[in-house]
């Protein structure tokens, strides 16, 4: 028996340690197809004390580990390749919710949507809303610096985290807070958010709660060209309107959605549709809605529908939110890709992606956060067909190279994990990657937290210089 099984069982109880490969198989992948790694052990602490004790026990036996929330990640970032997986989903207590000061302190396993549910009676919500929000956890959101459609107006996870208590990989417990406005200090909290589980495990997180808008209006505009839709996106932002969300859905996605049970009444002959949501105080909202309508029509929109009642709004959103599910009908597997380009490059980049997909004979459906230039080219495919899987992989490589060449980045909200590791050398200089390694080793000098992810090991000078390491 694995000697750690006994040690960890003594901390969390035997029922919360999994050692049998036949049971561990549940944890061999996240939300991204194509990657499977079996953990050595799975351990799920039930509270802060247990979590700290688990990390200290792992430190004492020099065991590398990976923390995992709900496993909804899309970068293979929480896979544990023969090492210990620490599951945080049992820690789902909302420790404190202060509706006056508008913050909540939660355990890392709290599900994103459940926090908003708890804040709702006070007219508040937790703003970052990844598409997986009914399953993903706050701890995972912090690790990935998660985004979502409404981050256009409200900001990403980093902008909403006030503090965290973190157990460092060596077992030390530290409190991370953003420096106040009247003091200077190194922003360790800012560095921690988005560190993909490589800097330690948060045992509690304090987040901002945002007042619910008094009124929300959702619009759907359809275009006969993708360029027209992209032009409308830029024009809306340029007009000084900051929509709560501004999403583009292309013809491939519309076809997938309309053929599914999630049919939302999107026009199937359109080249693209935009979902534009504006929200805020009642005063001034009608003016913004009218301006968005005018701008869309000027950019060539055929029709602009708007909905203010909850049922009709939900219908307009349904196709967007369930697009991944709708694509799931088309084939056994789906790659949900993630990249960012400058907003003005959207139209040429979408054209180039169409060309790449034709050349590799793969289907690419685009449904994404257009207001941020955050692309999600989605590729339905059959992972058990090696030829098709290889073509999908090569098409993804080309799409990433394209986004880098256009001045963008390889991930806007999913993280690097394992999947984006090969592109880091093209995006950053060796010196910049080494600086990232130095930051990581300040949090985790022994490099036991989520090893082998985010920064290619061959770029870490300090690591390569360590005794016994071969390049």
């Amino acid at each position, binding site marked *: 028996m694995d000697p750690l099984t006994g040690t960890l069982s003594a901390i969390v109880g035997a029922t919360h340690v999994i050692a049998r490969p036949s049971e561990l198989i549940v944890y061999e992948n996240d939300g991204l197809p194509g990657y499977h790694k079996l953990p050595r052990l799975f351990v799920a602490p039930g509270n802060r004390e247990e979590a700290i004790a688990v990390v200290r026990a792992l430190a004492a036996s020099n065991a590398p580990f990976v923390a995992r929330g709900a496993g909804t990640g899309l970068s293979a970032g929480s896979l544990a390749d023969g090492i210990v997986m620490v599951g945080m989903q049992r820690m789902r207590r909302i420790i404190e919710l202060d509706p006056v000061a508008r913050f909540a302190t939660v355990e890392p396993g709290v599900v994103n949507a459940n926090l908003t549910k708890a804040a709702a009676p006070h007219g508040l919500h937790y703003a970052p809303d990844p598409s997986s929000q009914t399953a993903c956890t706050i701890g995972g959101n912090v690790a990935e610096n998660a985004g979502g459609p409404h981050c256009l107006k409200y900001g990403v996870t980093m902008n909403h985290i006030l503090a965290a208590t973190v157990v460092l990989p060596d077992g030390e417990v530290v409190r991370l807070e953003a420096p106040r406005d009247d*003091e200077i200090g190194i*922003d360790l909290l800012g560095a921690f958010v988005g560190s993909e589980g490589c800097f330690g495990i948060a045992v509690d997180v304090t987040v901002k709660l945002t007042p619910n808008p008094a009124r929300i209006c959702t619009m759907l505009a359809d275009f006969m060209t993708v360029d027209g839709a992209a032009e409308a996106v830029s024009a809306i932002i340029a007009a000084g309107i900051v929509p709560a969300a501004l999403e583009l859905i292309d013809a491939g996605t519309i076809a997938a959605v309309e053929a599914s049970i999630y049919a939302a009444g999107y026009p199937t002959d359109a080249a693209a549709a935009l979902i534009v949501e504006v929200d805020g105080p009642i005063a001034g909202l009608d003016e913004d809605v009218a301006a968005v309508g005018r701008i869309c029509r000027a950019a060539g929109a055929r029709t602009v529908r708007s909905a203010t009642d909850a049922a009709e709004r939900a219908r307009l959103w349904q196709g967007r939110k369930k697009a991944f599910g709708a694509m799931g009908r088309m084939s056994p597997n789906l790659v949900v890709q993630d990249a960012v380009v400058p907003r003005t490059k959207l139209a040429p980049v979408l054209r180039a992606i169409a060309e790449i997909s034709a050349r590799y004979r793969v289907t690419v459906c685009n449904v994404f956060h257009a207001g941020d230039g955050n692309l999600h080219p989605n590729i339905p495919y059959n992972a058990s067909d090696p030829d098709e899987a290889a073509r999908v992989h090569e098409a993804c490589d080309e799409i990433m190279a394209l986004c880098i060449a256009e001045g963008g980045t390889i991930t806007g909200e999913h993280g690097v994990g394992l999947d984006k590791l090969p592109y880091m050398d093209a995006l950053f200089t060796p010196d910049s990657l080494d600086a990232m390694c130095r930051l990581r080793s300040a949090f985790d000098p022994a490099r036991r937290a989520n090893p082998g992810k985010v920064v290619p090991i061959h770029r870490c000078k300090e690591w390569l210089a360590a005794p016994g390491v071969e390049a």
Partner: protein
Amino acid sequence: MTARPASTDELATLVRDAHARGAALRFEGSGRWSDGRSPATRISPNAKRVSLAALSGVVSYVPNDFTLTVRAGTTLAELDAITAPNNQWCPLLSWGDDHGTVGATFATATAGPCSEALGRPRDIALGLEFVDGTGTVIRAGGHVVKNVAGFDLTRLMVGSFGSLGAITEVSVRLRARPTADVTWSVTADGPNAREQLSRIRRGTITPLACDVLSDEVARELGVPALSALVRFGGNAALIAAARAEVSTIGTIHVLDASVWTRYRSLDPHPRRLDARPLDGAVAGRIKERFDPAGIMNPGVFGERA
């Protein structure tokens, strides 16, 4: 004598040399942090002064992307002049005067009266270039508005007061200037006047700024005692509604927006004067790894220089 490198490469050479000799460096922009209470006074007096003011100007600006990359020595006034013709702004509006530099504003993470509504430097920075304590040029983040590729060296540098590296370039997120942008003094009376005025912050329409003024500051600005300095931005209908709501709290006097420039440069203001010491293990290890010779603004965090 103050060194004035004219390029990132010149700065990198200078730092590499200082690193090799273990010679302390003290970085400055426009010298706006030299008064007696600044954390900069803690920097070792033997440190050689290095001005980054000559590293100025636009690196890239695509107005429709609402992103801008400028060199560190660019002043806040220049930043405003660059973006204004496109009806955009980088809404730092930081405490201090507009001759302060972009580099210093981000290195010190100086907030301002609009920060709660429009973002602090850590929210506005998209990426940056810096020279670390070994003289290595490092690029952090990028130029796009959303980016989670790699560990966040941008957030690490913002607010680190030149103790880990000297910022040479910053990419920022811009916003469209509000269609209507109004500034008011709002005056209340009675024993609860200040508390009443602070409620403007939590009204149905969130202001861009709302600071309840001390008597001294009110006098300096020439507004009545028991006033708040308030700013709203948005379309005309929103402003009209804000006016109706705020007028139930106090008496509104319309002011010119230039009052903010005066207000921000008043002293005392909530500038960053205290330093959080580098006593934690992580902060100490970061300092060792980015400035192994301890030459970058040594002593600024109260550590032994």
